[in-house]
Every structure is written in structure tokens, then in C-alpha cells.
């Protein structure tokens, strides 16, 4: 796709020189590189997707404008191909993921676009590409394309996958655990070992701990909605057993995600440079425990490049934490 290639070339050139002179490079390249306007408009979902990471960097946006030292553009061609293909969302996983991003970040998204922060990026006449103006493309200065590109260049292109969600709910009635264990097929109760009934359902595949006070913990779901549905099913089972169970204060307590950066990591180097956050004791555990301060997430980083993120109450915290750690890990990629 010829359009896309024009788009990619100046981006690739950015990645080679990580200094402000690249902006001059672009300006000298002339406006003909930017005649295909569709990339900018259809680029917006990417922008929305990346504004999660962008938000966390908004205070350092001045740095962002000139610092491309951690550019990773491996995902760019795929996104642009899809975006050029259609304006509407297609039914594949990548799109749906971005849909989720977008649904969670719409308020941030609009905030970002209308914010005066844009002016901080020191692109004087930055136009604001928006989905509404798909037809009318304002005349661009060579500076403008940088605006949609900076969030793109900061992202890693890897999305952590949620593995486990732990939630609690209050059924608001006292329960007779022996009764429940007798009447339910999927329950186990061993009061000498643990003071709760352990109940399991097949769809969504989850486990619940039900206590005699009426409080319940639901674990094993892979998404927030699944966890809520599973908790409701457990409450229904308890209801059918004859207890006046309600469904109060459903709250997600913990979310665990994992992903793979696909290169080995020198944990000894990482613990030296980030000593105040990391704890690496090979005698105890083969991975490095990184306690990120903002957002408050604990990451387990392994030598194979796999990263486990835990301690989040919101999905966005996991994504944000990964976007924060990815440039740090890349710094240890080629060290030998």
C-alpha cells in the first residue's frame, strides 16, 4: 500500500536519529510526504489506544517531543494496514482490544485532545485530528505528523494478557456451610482445614470461597465482566439453596496479567540500576521483584523475558505499568 509506505518512511527515519534535528529533517522533506491524509485520521484509534501511556507521560511531554530514544515501531505496519482498510471496527481481537482501551479511556482521550497540554508539545499550529473531520483535512505543516506519532513511538506494541481476577462480594446473610456442602454438588467443605466452602462452576471457570458470614471471594476469571458474572452465578446457587442471598458491594480486589517481551533480560544489571524498586535474590526466587510506585503494581521479571504484573485494581494500571517497564527492560536487551 503506497500510502502506508510514505507514512512509514519518515517514521523509520525518526528512529535512527533520536535528536531534535529529525524534526528539521521532516520539514525539509516537504509536504508531499503527507498528501495521503487518511493515515492521520484513521490513526486516531491508535492514539486513543496509546493515550493510556501518553497520559502518564503528559507531564513529561516536553521530553517526549524530542526524545525518541526508546522508539519501537514493530507494531506500526499492522495497525496502519488495518486502519487504512476500514474506518469502522472489524471483528478481530486486535480491534476489540483497542475497543476496550477506547471504552475505558474516552474521557482521557477527549481530555487529551482538548487539553492545553498539546501546546506544550511545542508544535505551534498543531491541528487536532479527530474522527469527525475525516473528510476535511486541514493544511498541515511538516510538524503536525509528529503529534500522532509520539504516542505511537512510546508504546511497546505488546499487550499484557489478564490471567486472573480476584473479587469479593457480600451476600448479606448468614450461611450454614454444612447445609451448603450437603446440598451442592460442586462444593467442598473441610472445617478443620479451612473455615469456608470451596465452590466451583464450569462457566466461567472459577472458584469461590464462601464464608459463613455471607462474604464471598471469587477467583479465576479472566476478565472483570466474567468475574462479575461468575459471582452472580454463585449467589444464585446460594439463593437456590434457600438462603436470602443478595449481591452487595461487588469489588475487584486484584488483577494479574502476564506478557512476554521476547528478549532475555540481565536481571543483575536491572537490580543495580533500579535498586530502590527491585529485589533480586536468586537464592529465593529466580525472578526479579520490581515494586513500581506509580501505578502501585508489583512486577515479576524473569530472565526469559516473561513479565507477570499483579496488584492492580484496574485493567489500565496493568497496561500503564507495562508501558512504564518496557523502556527500562529494553535498556538491558543488548547488554552482555
Amino acid at each position, binding site marked *: 500500500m503506497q500510502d502506508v509506505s510514505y507514512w512509514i518512511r519518515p517514521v523509520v527515519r525518526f528512529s535512527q536519529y533520536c535528536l531534535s534535528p529529525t524534526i528539521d529533517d521532516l520539514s525539509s522533506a516537504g509536504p508531499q510526504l503527507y498528501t495521503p491524509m487518511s493515515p492521520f485520521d484513521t490513526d486516531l484509534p491508535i492514539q486513543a489506544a496509546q493515550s493510556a501511556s501518553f497520559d502518564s507521560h503528559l507531564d513529561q511531554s516536553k521530553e517526549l517531543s524530542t526524545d525518541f530514544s526508546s522508539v519501537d515501531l514493530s507494531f506500526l505496519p499492522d495497525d496502519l494496514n488495518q486502519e487504512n482498510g476500514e474506518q469502522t471496527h472489524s*471483528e478481530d*481481537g486486535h480491534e*476489540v482490544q483497542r475497543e*476496550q482501551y477506547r471504552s475505558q479511556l474516552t474521557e482521557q482521550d477527549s481530555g487529551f485532545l482538548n487539553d492545553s497540554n498539546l501546546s506544550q508539545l511545542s508544535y505551534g499550529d498543531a491541528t487536532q485530528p479527530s474522527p469527525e473531520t475525516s473528510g476535511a483535512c486541514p493544511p498541515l505543516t511538516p510538524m503536525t505528523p509528529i503529534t500522532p506519532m509520539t504516542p505511537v513511538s512510546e508504546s511497546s506494541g505488546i499487550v499484557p*494478557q489478564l*490471567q486472573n481476577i480476584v473479587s469479593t462480594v457480600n451476600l448479606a446473610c448468614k450461611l450454614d456451610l454444612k447445609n451448603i456442602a*450437603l*446440598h*451442592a*454438588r*460442586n462444593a467442598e467443605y473441610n472445617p478443620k482445614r479451612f473455615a469456608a466452602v470451596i465452590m466451583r*462452576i464450569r*462457566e*466461567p471457570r472459577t472458584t469461590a470461597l464462601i464464608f459463613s458470614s455471607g462474604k464471598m471471594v471469587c477467583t479465576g476469571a*479472566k*476478565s*472483570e*465482566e*466474567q*468475574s*462479575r*458474572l461468575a459471582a*452472580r*452465578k454463585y449467589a*444464585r*446457587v446460594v439463593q*437456590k*439453596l434457600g438462603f436470602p442471598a443478595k449481591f452487595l458491594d461487588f469489588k475487584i480486589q486484584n488483577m494479574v496479567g502476564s506478557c512476554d517481551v521476547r*528478549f*532475555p533480560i*540481565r*536481571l*543483575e544489571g536491572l*537490580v*543495580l540500576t533500579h*535498586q*530502590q524498586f527491585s*529485589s*533480586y*535474590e*536468586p*537464592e*529465593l*526466587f*529466580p*525472578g526479579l521483584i520490581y515494586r513500581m510506585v506509580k501505578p502501585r503494581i508489583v512486577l515479576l521479571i*524473569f*530472565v*526469559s*523475558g516473561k513479565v507477570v504484573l499483579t496488584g492492580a485494581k484496574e485493567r489500565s494500571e496493568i497496561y500503564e505499568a507495562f508501558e512504564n517497564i518496557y523502556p527500562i527492560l529494553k535498556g538491558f*536487551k*543488548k547488554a*552482555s
Partner: protein
Amino acid sequence: MSGQRKCPDCGSSEIVEDAHYAQNQLVCADCGFILTEGLLTTTFQDEEHLQEVTYSRSTGQNEQLSRCKLRGIKRVQDLCKVLYLPAVFEDTALSYFQRAIEHPSFHLVSLEKKEILVGCCVFVTCRQHNWPLTMGTICSLLYADKELFASVYLCVLKELELDVPALSLTDLVKTHLNSFKLFQSSASVPAKFAEDKEKMVARTIQIVELASETWLVTGRHPIPIVTAAAYLAWQSLQPVGRLTCTFARFCKMAGTDLPPPAHLRLKELNDILLRMASQLAWLRVLNVDKKTVVKHIGDLLQHRHFLLRSSFSSGDTEDQSATAVGDGSVSSPQAAGCSAQAEGCHPGGKQKCSSVRRPLLPPCLINPRKRLRTAALSPSDQAITGDEAISDSEIEQYLRSQEEMQEFSKAQAWH
């Protein structure tokens, strides 16, 4: 003496020995006449024989502390003495312990945990001063459970907000080898097995550095690696008599135990050395295999930087240019052999290892264990809103019927 004296003043024989302000006096019990007094000052000669009284014994400090704290303090001091730690370490460890024992999360724990807390404070102090002490040593000294030690240790780090630097492998090698009994011949160590300590330590450090460069150290317990490296170093210093000595026998001779992972580390180290050996021209003709590579460890270590670059491809791209480097010590056919992947094997030598350059990666990436990878959420799963209707039939499948319940309670009747 008091029985024989008589008071000069009143003549009574009731003389008692009394300590007035810690000064011994002989006093008449009837009239209070002081017969003799102790000396208020001591002469220089006397002072030579005086013993230093520690602060903790001269003041009433011990009475102010609870018994648990006193015991803990004594244990810390004992542990420091056993490990021959400098006095500074003892003070630091004591201060950590006193801070920790005040903390609510340690104040009311079991005696076992308090004992482990003592070990943790000493361990943290040593690590902060870069004194190479391993958790295994502390656990064996305290007869502590390793998992419990690990959890208490992490708790201590979090509560006291301490930073602990990473364990330095070089220091660990030196300390660990200090405990080996190979450095002079004795009843259990024949003369040809005894080895000079400096040479062995130096070579072991080199091998451990080689292991660390080739991703064998990251994420692994350090002691098995040090043990395996020591074995290889010891063998290579005098291969003639020592090649027949097995790893287990070596450890028994040296007086250390052989940790189970050490065999795997030895295998991995041998693999690395074999690959490096395949890049040295004069070794290719010699048909080196994993038993004989030990003889050439000296050469391999000498040229290790070049050999590592040429034996392993870096990450994504084949590093062809690296083969051109270091042509001084090797002949050009070998450089050509490096770049020709297809005919990696020298026609003459039968290499046991494949000469195809593999990327320099940790072993977990080279031999990935087949794991069930959970698939990402399917589209139908993603469409769940959490508020769907739940059918009765679905819930009923989880409830027991009457007959089932009767049978179940019959089965449980003996409970």
C-alpha cells in the same frame, strides 16, 4: 578474719564486712567503728589486672529490656561470634534487631520466627557490607526452615525499608572456596589432588564470569554454579591425574556437599566450553568431547572473549563481522568456517557438538518447556457484560437431588 578481730572502740567481737558504696569495709556491728576500709584508688599495677566491664553489664540496662529482647540480643551476638564477623557488624545487626522486634509484625510471632529474625538481621548486615554470606549458611546454622526464612527476610526488608545490594559472585567464590579442604594434602587428600589456593580461586572466578556472560547464572542459585566451576577449575589445573575423579568424589574430598543442581550446571558449562572449543583451530583437529575439554580450559579461558563472539550468534542477526576479529591467534580457514553455517563441521574433526552457531540465550529459552499456553479471550468471551441472565437449568446442575443427598449423608455418617 572478722571472727578474730575485736573492735578497738567498744571491744565487741561483732565485726561484719559491709560494702558501703561498693567499697568493702570492716565495721563493728555494735558501735559502728570502721576497722578497715577498702582502697578508694587503685595503683597502676592493680589496674593492669582489671577487666573491662561492658556497658550492658555495668548499668541496669538489662533490667529494662524484656526477656525476649535480651535473648534475641544474645543470639545476635552469638551468631556474629560464630561467623567471625567484625565488631561493626554486630552493632549494626543489633540495631536492626531492636528496630525489628519493636515492629508490630514481629513482636508477637512464634519463637521459631524470632530466631529466624535474628538470622535475618545478621544476614542483612553482612550483605550490606558486601560480606558474602548465603542464606543457606544462616539456615543451617539456625536449623531454620528455608521457606520460613525467605518469608521473614522479605518481611524484614519491607518493614525496616532496607536496601540490600546484590550478592557479589567474586566474593562468594572466595568465601566458598575457603571452606574447601583441598589446599594441603592430608589423609583424605592425596598429594596429586591438593591444589594451590590462589590459582584455583583465580580460575574458578574466570569460569564463573564465563558462566555469567553466557546466561547460566541469572536467576539460578549461585552455590551450585560455584561448586561446578570449582570442580572444572581443579580438574583443569592438573588434568593428568584428576580426570578420573568424579564430581561427587571431589565434593566429598573437599568437605562440601554436592547440591543437586550442580550436575546440571556442570553439563551446561561443559556445553558452553565445547562450543568455544569448536572455534579454536588447534582444538578442532583434536576431537574434543565433554570429557577431554577440561584439559583445554586454560586456553579457552584465555581467548574467551573472542571465542564467545564467534561461537554464538548475537540475538537476531548473524554477527559475521565478529569472525574477522581476532585473526591473530587463529588461522583464516577457521574464520571462513565460522561464517559458513552449512558446513559448520570441520571435515576432519568429528565434533560431538553441532557447530551451528546458536544464539546466546538463557537455557530456559533454548530448551523451552512445553507449557499449555492459555489462549486469549475468545470473541464470545469478550462479549460478556457481566449482567446477563442466568438460566435456572444452569444453576440446577450444581444442586444435588434428594437421593444423592441421602446417599451422601449415609456415606458421611461415620464422620
